């Protein structure tokens, strides 16, 4: 029996597909806003090791053995059909949560890096991370009302982005605008597959 599209579709009906997309960017760039604008936000907590600085700040008298703290994560879902769901995970911005990134990135389709032109450098670590990992990503410049607008070419140069990385403007508050960013990411992932580029984090 030939393996046609219909077989793939039938197979998928038996096996639900979850697509994971990461939303990264500096503190205050608009990650939470974007997840909220475009998906059904779900409360999600994770517990993480207390860092040295916070163990000095937090009063731990009587709870000396407490070495973890609970943090809220940006998490949203977009249900496309019964067996196809897109999950959005905001990557924790603070340095002490960086160890979580590998886990979040594992098996992810790709990432949106949100940039704020007033603090462009804040998104450099995210760009570096996804470049190094060979993971598809797009950079979405969140157009804050009071931020100066720059030509895309200028921003591409400032971010040192390779020509194949999509750079788009967005308003993270707007559902349509945030949706377009996700569409750009999925199209970019498709284009990379079509051009034969291997995707390392699918493993």
């Amino acid at each position, binding site marked *: 029996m030939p393996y046609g599209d219909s077989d793939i*579709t039938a197979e998928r009906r038996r096996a639900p597909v979850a697509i994971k997309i990461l939303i990264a960017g500096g503190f205050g760039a608009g990650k939470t806003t974007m997840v909220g604008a475009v998906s059904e936000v779900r409360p999600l907590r994770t517990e993480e090791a207390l860092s040295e600085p916070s163990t000095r700040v937090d009063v731990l008298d009587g709870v000396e053995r407490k070495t973890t703290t609970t943090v809220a994560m940006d*998490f949203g879902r977009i249900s496309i059909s019964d067996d196809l769901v897109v999950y959005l995970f905001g990557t924790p911005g603070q340095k002490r949560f960086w160890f979580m990134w590998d886990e979040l990135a594992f098996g992810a389709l790709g990432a949106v890096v949100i940039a704020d032109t007033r603090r462009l450098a804040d998104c450099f670590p995210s760009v570096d991370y996804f470049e190094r990992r060979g993971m598809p990503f797009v950079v979405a410049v969140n157009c804050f009302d009071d931020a100066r607008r720059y030509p895309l070419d200028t921003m591409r140069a400032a971010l040192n982005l390779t020509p194949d990385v999509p750079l788009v403007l967005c308003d993270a508050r707007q559902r349509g605008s945030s949706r377009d960013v996700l569409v750009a990411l999925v199209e970019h992932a498709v284009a990379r597959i079509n051009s034969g580029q291997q995707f390392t984090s699918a493993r």
Partner: protein
Amino acid sequence: MVALVSALRSTSVADIEPGLDPKLGPEHLRLLDGCRGPIAVADLASDLDLPLGVVRILIADLREHGLVNVRQPAPSGLSDIGILKEVADALRRL
């Protein structure tokens, strides 16, 4: 985080309660109840209002007891152009 957890067909809370393993607490039973159909780990944590790490440990316990099945959600989806186009089309309609 998006690995799919599902309770094995034959198990239900009622089935295991009589001979309950002392190591299985009420959270285990809640979790088992919450994964009747395949559900992503992150969704389960959200549904049960438990931190991700706690849910992972509970899942590991249940798996050890042969009560749940955990699998990656069709990772081939990431390189399946058909699925990605379906995702892009669905997003455009949002």
